[in-house]
């Protein structure tokens, strides 16, 4: 085999390796058996019906969604403000500021999880949704700051200066000129934040109250008591949602450039 052909074959194999677990989950969701098995025995939508009628799954999905939405909103506001101050060097120590904002990416998530468990136990925030929300703003903030800084760097400062010359004050110039220009970067950063929050287990699992669950934590803990095709059905729904989100984000923001 020619080296070029060999390389292409290996690359194709690796791409297949990346997709196979995803396809397997989807297949497993259609099995008629009460246990998880691949290839599926029989073909049924029964497990989707079970899952969509299950109050536990529905409330977990609801918790996951509002948490991700609220965390993204919080991170966007705080992150954009911080990125503006860093980008324009409004304060001394801009480097240190951006290092602190990025620090939650470096610390192992499980360490932040257990640290917050102790902290919230001491301060009485344990089991409170507010504590969970604050934790999720912390873990999503780096993604927004990084995206906002990238977006701001790409804006020509002359454009906002031009607005000032034409009589706009600082805030108006920002709102009418800079903000629209950084919006695609903010959408990409916000999407990353949303996905990160929706994905998180290592912090969330320590902070949920006994009656609360998020979708990934529910799947994570249910695996310990054995799995049925219902877990595969929930996973399939998440796979469809992710695929749709990726297509939409790519169409509107050219998402892959921000990865």
């Amino acid at each position, binding site marked *: 085999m020619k080296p070029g052909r060999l390389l292409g074959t290996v690359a194709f194999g690796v791409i297949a390796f990346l997709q196979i*677990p*995803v396809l397997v989950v989807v297949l497993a969701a259609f099995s008629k058996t009460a246990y998880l098995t*691949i290839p599926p025995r029989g073909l049924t939508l029964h497990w989707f019906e079970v899952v969509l009628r299950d109050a536990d799954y529905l409330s977990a999905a609801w918790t996951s969604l509002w948490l991700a939405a609220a965390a993204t909103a919080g991170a966007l506001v705080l992150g954009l403000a911080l990125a503006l101050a860093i980008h324009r060097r409004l304060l001394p120590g801009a480097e240190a500021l951006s290092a602190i904002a990025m620090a939650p990416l*470096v610390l192992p998530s*499980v*360490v932040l999880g257990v640290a917050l468990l102790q902290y919230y136990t001491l301060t009485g925030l344990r089991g409170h949704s507010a504590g969970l929300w604050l934790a999720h703003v912390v873990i999503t903030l780096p993604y927004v700051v990084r995206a906002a800084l990238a977006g701001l760097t790409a804006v020509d400062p002359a454009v906002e200066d031009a607005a000032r010359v034409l009589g706009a004050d600082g805030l108006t110039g920002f709102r009418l000129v800079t903000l629209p220009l950084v919006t695609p970067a903010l959408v990409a950063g916000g999407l990353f934040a949303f996905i990160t929050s929706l994905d998180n*287990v290592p912090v969330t699992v320590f902070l949920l109250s006994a009656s609360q669950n998020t979708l990934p934590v529910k*799947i994570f803990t249910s695996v310990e008591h054995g799995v049925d095709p219902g877990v595969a059905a929930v996973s399939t729904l998440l796979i469809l949602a*992710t695929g749709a989100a990726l297509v939409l984000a790519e169409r509107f923001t050219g998402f892959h450039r921000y990865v």
Partner: protein
Amino acid sequence: MSRSNTPAALSLVTPALALLVLVFVAPVLLMLPLSLHEYVAGTGISPRWTLANYTQVFSDEYYREVVARTLQLGFGVTGLCLLLGYPLALTMARSTPRLRFWLTMLVIFPMLLNLVVRSFGWIALLANRGLVNNLLIDSGLIERPIKLMFNLTGVWLGMTHIFLPFMVLMLVPVIQAIPRDVEEAACTLAASRPRVFWSVTLPLSAPGILSGSILVFVLTISALVTPRMLGGPTYKVMATLIYDDFLQTLDWPAGAALSFVLTAMTLAIIAVSSRLLRHWGGQA
């Protein structure tokens, strides 16, 4: 928002900074005294100060095994990611923009997918009634399912799959940045294809290999979800031991000490590698 407007600047920075200090820095620092106390089963955390939680990580047989296993996985996953990721990254870097776009999408898609779902996919593949065992039994190669989960094989494969996209995405731009002229010059000088790869392409992509490897290594040793789902409650790494210390055995001080050891390992690796990278950058 002029450059001298300090109150405006403070109002931009304060909310985010307050959040990071109160919900990130303070909790981590408060875990330090916790890690220096003794845990007595039944009665809880004693007020006596001790270093025992740290010394046992290095002296206790069981802890040493868990730390060694964590590092072994770090190296194993990084090596396999490099082995699988480099050919794909090279193909992507050298393909047409259109093909590269589609390949990038196929690499990003599993990365965006919920981590729990991806780990679950590996359960579906590797379980006793999973795809691999079913295929092997149907083809008559084995009679009884072989154990692929709750051991090194399962966690190694699963984590390689999880972190491979990071490696690929770090390698592609570095390989793309290598000027084709250099390789063509080597070809002109009668170097064979493999020779060009080993003595030109590969060394020039070394900074990308290093940063990709560091990223994957650090992510692997701090991962909780995949080792727990594919390793089960018995095959433990540092992160899953911390999880059990806090939620199952309730030995919080031991878990806190192990958390700091894990954090120190992570930070040390990042510090050393960024030094190396800067050194490299200086040479180029």
